[in-house]
């Protein structure tokens, strides 16, 4: 049973480190989907990557600040 729990945790852990951050990433993708379904311009999908990249810059700097504050 412990092994199964560890396997399930491992699978979820593949995609989720921080639920809030994952939620933001999924939110960006959903908004991207909404925009892409209405605006048909080649290359506009790069905006999704830019938003996700900005999100990771924010999330990592925030985590670094929190860790520094704790120590």
């Amino acid at each position, binding site marked *: 049973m412990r*092994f199964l729990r*560890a*396997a399930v945790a*491992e*699978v979820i852990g*593949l*995609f*989720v*480190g921080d639920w809030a*951050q*994952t939620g933001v*990433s*999924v939110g960006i*993708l959903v908004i*991207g*989907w909404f925009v*892409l*379904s209405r605006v048909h311009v*080649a*290359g*506009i*999908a*790069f905006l*999704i*990557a*830019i938003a*996700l*990249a*900005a999100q*990771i*810059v924010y*999330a*990592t*700097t925030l*985590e*670094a*600040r929190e*860790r*520094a504050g704790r120590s």
Partner: protein
Amino acid sequence: MYAQLLTFGAAFLGSAVESVEALTIVLAVGLTRGWRSPLYGTVVALVALAILVLVFGQLIVTRVPELTLKLIIGTLIVLFGLRWLHKAILRSAGVIAMHDENKSYEETLKELHGSVLRQDWVAFVIALKGVFLEGMEVVFIVVAVGGTSGSGGLPIAVAGGLLAMIVIAVTGVIVRKPLAQVPENTLKYAVGVVLASIGTFWAAEGMGATWPLDLASVLGLAAIYFGASRVAVMMIRRRKPVMA
């Protein structure tokens, strides 16, 4: 050709990183308790992983419509890649310690010394658990990258994953100690960028987007993610002195 190389490369790099971690566990068990039980555990884990690849790979390739597949798997690959990239940024900036195979090796040894009874069973279970859990990431990378690469993508991804495992296993047998020299953190950084880029490409295609220059757009996406990660590392380093 370009798509096949990308599929093979992503599967190879991702699998190599995880194989190093699995090998560390098997080596720690084998060198301290003998090789028979950990090798049985490794074989059982590899068979289970191969079944997962076959079942999920076939199911995905044959049952799910292409656009739906690209959207779902692309989204999962984005999340997976961003998670690796997140950790790689924090490691590069010195916020968290670099992954150290020697340390993992010592920890597994400690775990083994704590158990006294039924040594073979313990060695079997630790090797099985280590290889199976680390191998789950290999399975995901191979099935996701192979399943979304069109017809013939899955065998290429499987070949990339298998070759990585063989290369790491042979190296491990030759050196007989943890592969601490493998630049694991750099590899994880590269794989994080590659997977986030491929994932974004496929997810957007699944949403109905068209990319200028088709698959070559992945290079542009990789530049965006790599550039952002360097900006993050720079910002973190500027804020505080490097810890590690």
